[in-house]
């Protein structure tokens, strides 16, 4: 009897922490989303029913706008990270002199925070100080211009995001047995065929998992956008979580902020499950 309790004892701290600081908060967000809870208008607080959701879906243009930007941001960012990250992983998986150093260098931006990334890239983007003037950058501020702000934030996040993608895919590449390549080479498969018939099928689960993790991460990315653009200019780079923060923190509207949070959580969960299903993640397949 005592022996069977051991694993439960071992996981009990984890379970307690997750229950207290992740599960319970989700429950309370769900509760608040059905309440009017605004610190600046305390007289109107109380049960709201689906009022917050009605307001969100039918009256709030900024909700839809931020949702649209979130989708665009996630798709562009994850798509580019997949292409560049895969290329980078394939390169640093080859054996060459100085590979360890090269890995440490190209992966290092991953260790850097969103705020620090912002700090560095502000130095690069500010007209008077930036390196872009060597490339013939016009004098206008990149981040203040609605036409250039999107490519600017995308490139900035790529700088930090591609390395982590490459790390995940490199880990996947290292799981592919070398004999498979030898066998394929013996059978006369060229480099391209080996890539498409050996590497890609074996990387499939790693790619699905990495794109999903990055997708969730970019959906929830707040620190970079918050400090780089603050969601501007004119809400052009406001993602849903950033909008939640604005509502909850700046206008102290906890009830409505919670409703937005629930929407984000449901969308994220739904998209993730759909994505895993569509890709038949983890199921046995014919390799």
């Amino acid at each position: 009897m005592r022996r069977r309790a051991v694993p439960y004892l071992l996981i009990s701290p984890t379970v307690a922490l997750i229950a207290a600081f992740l599960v319970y908060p989700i429950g309370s967000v769900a509760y608040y989303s059905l309440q009017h809870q605004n610190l600046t208008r305390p007289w109107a607080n109380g049960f709201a029913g689906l009022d917050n959701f009605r307001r969100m879906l039918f009256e709030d243009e900024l909700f839809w706008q931020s949702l649209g930007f979130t989708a665009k941001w996630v798709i562009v960012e994850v798509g580019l990270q997949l292409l560049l990250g895969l290329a980078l992983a394939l390169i640093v998986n080859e054996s060459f002199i100085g590979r360890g150093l090269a890995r440490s260098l190209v992966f290092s931006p991953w260790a850097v925070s969103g705020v620090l990334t912002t700090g560095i890239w502000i130095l690069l983007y500010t007209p008077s100080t930036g390196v872009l003037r060597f490339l013939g950058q016009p004098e206008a501020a990149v981040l203040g211009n609605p036409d250039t702000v999107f490519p600017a934030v995308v490139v900035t996040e790529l700088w930090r995001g591609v390395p982590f993608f490459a790390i995940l895919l490199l880990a996947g590449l290292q799981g592919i047995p070398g004999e498979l390549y030898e066998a394929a080479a013996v059978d006369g498969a060229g480099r391209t065929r080996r890539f498409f018939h050996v590497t890609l099928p074996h990387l499939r689960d790693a790619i699905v998992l990495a794109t999903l993790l990055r997708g969730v991460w970019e959906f929830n990315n707040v620190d970079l956008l918050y400090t780089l653009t603050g969601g501007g200019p004119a809400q052009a780079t406001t993602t849903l979580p950033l909008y939640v923060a604005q509502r909850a923190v700046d206008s102290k509207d906890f009830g409505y902020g919670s409703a937005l949070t629930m929407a984000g959580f449901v969308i994220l969960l739904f998209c993730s499950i759909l994505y895993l299903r569509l890709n038949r993640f983890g199921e046995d397949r014919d390799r």
Partner: protein
Amino acid sequence: MSADVMTRPRSRAAVPAGARRRRSKRKDPGRVLRLYIPLGLYLVFTLVPFYWMLVFALRPAGSTDPVPWPITFEHFETVWNDIGYAVFFKNSVIVGVWSLLFTTVIAVMGGYALARYRFRGRGLFMVVLLCTQFIPGAMMLIPLFSIFKSLGLINSLGSLVLADTVFNLPLSIILMSGFISAVPFTVEEAAMVDGCTRLRGFLAIVLPQLRPGLIAVGSFAFIHTWNNFLFALMFVSKQDSFTIPVGLSYTIGEYSADFGALAAGGVVAALPVVCVFAVVQRYLVHGISAGAVKG
């Protein structure tokens, strides 16, 4: 010794051995095009921003030289003494180290349970761990804030240690269980046959072999905590409790005219984590392939 070899990153074995090694012996011009040129371009993209930050941090204010010469440390003195990075740095180290310790200890416990026991609820536990990855930290701010408020932890570093530990844990447990699975159970069994308790067997036999895993998980937790901006921004509003990312964000706002201070603050923020990362990067790759991305 053989066990040590087993736990080391197996990068060499994973290189598609025969075909490529033979190829690289005779001169292959395709290799330059395929390997070195893209790698070089990517290195430029990676390193130019770091270099630009260093230039600003090290050259005198007002200089526009692309090479920082003569080198000056005036900006570091400004951020360290006047802006208060000495305090932010200390706070970040405190939060980072405590969160590292809690995360690692709890992850070893949870990882051991997952790797060595088949218990009822194990599948559910795994699912919950994976599901937590979809919980947006930014969206938990409201409820977490009220929890910490009722615990009296607002404005204390304790709230950051707790919150960061919770958000580090799921991935750390998954990584750790991968590392523990890689240590063969037979050595532990042998120790128990010789009269060791399970705990002593673990401490004496398994733990020493887990060193790469402990390094990977611990550094992962430290880097995440060191970089966490949102929690620190939300739960702490007293300047003497600021951590580095919060201090840096204020430097960006208030001193954006003083790019030297901004860059020097950036160097202070980057130096510890980039150094840690350079050292542990191979353990991390190995840990992810052992634990998380079993293809």
